[in-house]
């Protein structure tokens, strides 16, 4: 028995010994990869490194990420801007970015928050979980915001290197340097033309049913209060949606009035562009809910103009 125990310990020893240094090396190298995890790492890096340094920040999902170009806003308003839109995630993880921004960066003066029918939906899967890999080891904030999802286990947060199990692409991305940055100030315009995503979605169902997450609404309410307390102006923006797609979303009107009621309650500006003429033209979209680069430029110019009218 002694021999067996000794042999097992000897066999496992190098793995235990190497786990932490490997974690450190792979995580640090991975952070330097500008395009891994759809480019989200560059945004997390900027957040943790405290290099955001912008008066205007943009929050939201992919509809913020690909719709609002910070450079156009900078040109119009004369104030530095950064896009913190996070692809595939609702307000819960958008709030995580807000928390880290406030902790490690200069406080912004204005937050442009892109809201839509999916902002407050229940989400179970941790979409694009790879983006958290270099940061989650003993990170209380990320653990708090991601542990309720199906993505990481309790061991991933507390045992070194375990979270890289089965993530061959992440290790490969760490080892093969790729300094190409997908994002520009967090923004990623899409040079795409209309595809058949919408057609496929329509063929599969008559409408998309949305289930609201009540906890998320409470968090949103608290966020608006916090911003008021911290003297940060929040501008709620409903960015353009292709008109046909709007009919496809169940509970859309209910959610739009809910956003309206939040704006009224907290006395924040709410700009709804979902009835704008841009929503009638397919050439500005690549699918029903996302503008292409051409549409994003046109829309950001409209938004910037309105921001200037509002007095920055």
């Amino acid at each position, binding site marked *: *028995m002694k*021999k*067996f125990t000794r*042999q*097992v310990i000897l*066999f496992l020893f*190098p*793995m235990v010994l190497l786990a932490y240094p490997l974690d450190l090396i792979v995580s640090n190298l991975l952070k330097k990869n500008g395009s891994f995890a759809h480019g989200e790492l560059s945004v997390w890096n900027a957040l943790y490194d405290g290099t955001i340094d912008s008066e205007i920040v943009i929050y939201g999902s992919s509809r913020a990420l690909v719709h609002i170009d910070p450079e156009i806003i900078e040109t119009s308003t004369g104030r530095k801007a950064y896009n913190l839109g996070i692809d595939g995630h609702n307000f819960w993880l958008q709030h995580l970015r807000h928390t880290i921004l406030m902790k490690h960066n200069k406080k912004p003066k204005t937050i442009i928050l892109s809201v839509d029918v999916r902002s407050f939906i229940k989400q179970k899967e941790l979409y694009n979980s790879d983006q958290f890999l270099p940061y989650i080891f003993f990170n209380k904030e990320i653990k708090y915001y991601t542990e309720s999802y199906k993505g990481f*286990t309790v*061991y991933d947060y507390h045992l070194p290197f*375990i979270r*890289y*199990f*089965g993530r*061959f692409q992440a*290790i490969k991305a760490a080892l093969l340097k790729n300094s190409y940055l997908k994002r520009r100030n967090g923004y990623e315009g899409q040079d795409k033309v209309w595809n058949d995503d919408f057609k496929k979605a329509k063929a599969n169902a008559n409408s998309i049913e949305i289930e609201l997450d009540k906890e998320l609404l409470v968090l949103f309410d608290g966020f608006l209060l916090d911003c008021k307390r911290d003297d940060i102006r929040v501008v709620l923006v409903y960015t353009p949606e292709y008109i046909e797609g709007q009919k496809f979303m169940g509970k859309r009107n209910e959610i739009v009035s809910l956003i309206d009621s939040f704006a009224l309650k907290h006395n924040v500006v709410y700009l709804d562009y979902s009835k704008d003429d841009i929503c009638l033209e397919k050439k500005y979209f690549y699918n029903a809910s996302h503008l292409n680069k051409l549409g994003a430029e046109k829309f950001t110019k409209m938004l910037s103009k309105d921001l200037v009218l509002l007095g920055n």
Partner: protein
Amino acid sequence: MLFNSIDFALFLPIVFILYWFVFNRNIKLQNLLIVIASYVFYGSWDWRFLLLILFSTFVDYLVGIALEKEETLKKRRLLLWISIFVNLGFLGFFKYYNFFLDNFTNVFSFFGHKIDASSLSIILPVGISFYTFQTLSYTIDVYRKKMKPTKDFVAFAAFVSFFPQLVAGPIERATNLLPQFVKKREFDYNKACDGLRQILWGLFKKIVIADNCAKYANIIFNNSEVYSGSTLVLGSLFFAFQIYGDYSGYSDIAIGTSRLFGFNLQKNFAFPYFSRNIGEFWRRWHISLSTWFRDYLYIPLGGSKVGKVRVVRNIFVIFIVSGFWHGANWNFIIWGALNALYFLPLLFRSKNRKYMDVVAINSNLPSFKELIQMAMTFGFTLVAWIFFRSDTVSQAIQILSEIFSMSLFGMPSFKKPIIIWVLIFMFIEWVGRDSEYAIEKLGKNWHESLRWGFYYIIVISIFLMGSEGEEFIYFQF
């Protein structure tokens, strides 16, 4: 709790330490620990399943004791039927209720009678098909006076619920496993090392081969209507290696884990894809289930020692029941029937037991004839796997008609590195084909550092290629 999870990686050493360091002087305490550990393991899926297994254990324990006391044949038969009724009753209700209900209503509505019967939303308890057959083997063997019943309830409960093989086999015979629970177990260094090696190889099969093949098999089967014949063949190949890697991998982990605790389980897979005919394939594939059906169904029905018509019936019965055991679905039934059709010509030409040895035992490579035989046998099983994997019979027919069309001769639209892994895997399996499991003897004569290097490569490939928490296919059966 899955074998391929960190939970199990923590659970196993805890039970191992308690078993050999704390309770090693008392066999009863060791058995009690196994029962508790097994119930924790099983309850981690759903604690309600424990009530079922506990009830089944009580019934069969009491039936066993009553059978020993009872001498009259009539009463003994009644006791046996009680056990069969309870065990198959649970299995029938949880696994087949909705299937029979749907088919009855379909038949009645075909004849113009509408029946208002709504199906129930039933959760299938994990492993019920496995432990039901295991406990049935006990009562049948006691009834046949092949073994004496045990009076040690804890040992019996440990036999029924033994966690390494509880949820997906091998389906152990009471005559093999139960006596091991009443005999003192001594720690054996070589046996334990062998157990660890087999666990490692099982994890490789499951995580590297099965789970990665599954990704592509699922894509191809879920969109079968858009793929060409050649891609569908590739999809079927992926599935063939998925199911083999998955289930034989599970069996290896189960057998290896048991060895750590001093138990010997029966071999469940013996390199089936190197079979030279279907008869050999069925002696090498899911051996514990095939032999269960042979001993408790085929032979009682008369086996092959009856007239030709009855032999045909018996063969169809065991293969169809075997298919139905896998699930309440017409696809499984057709899969079973197809295998019966493959098997019958061999039986009538008395060639079903022709290949009892290991292929190319004295050479490194198979002869041309053996190669053709293996390829043909594999081809036949591949056609049957298409029925097994498809969602409906019509999907299987659609896939087969596409495969047997001109599109078979185009290039498949999938070129994935997993094919290289499968080839490496099959090479290692070929090298180790005369062993209990492929890497049993591989590297035994190498220098320790070289051997450990080989094991580290396996560990690293598991780490890189894996995805935690992928379920085993056989859990659903």
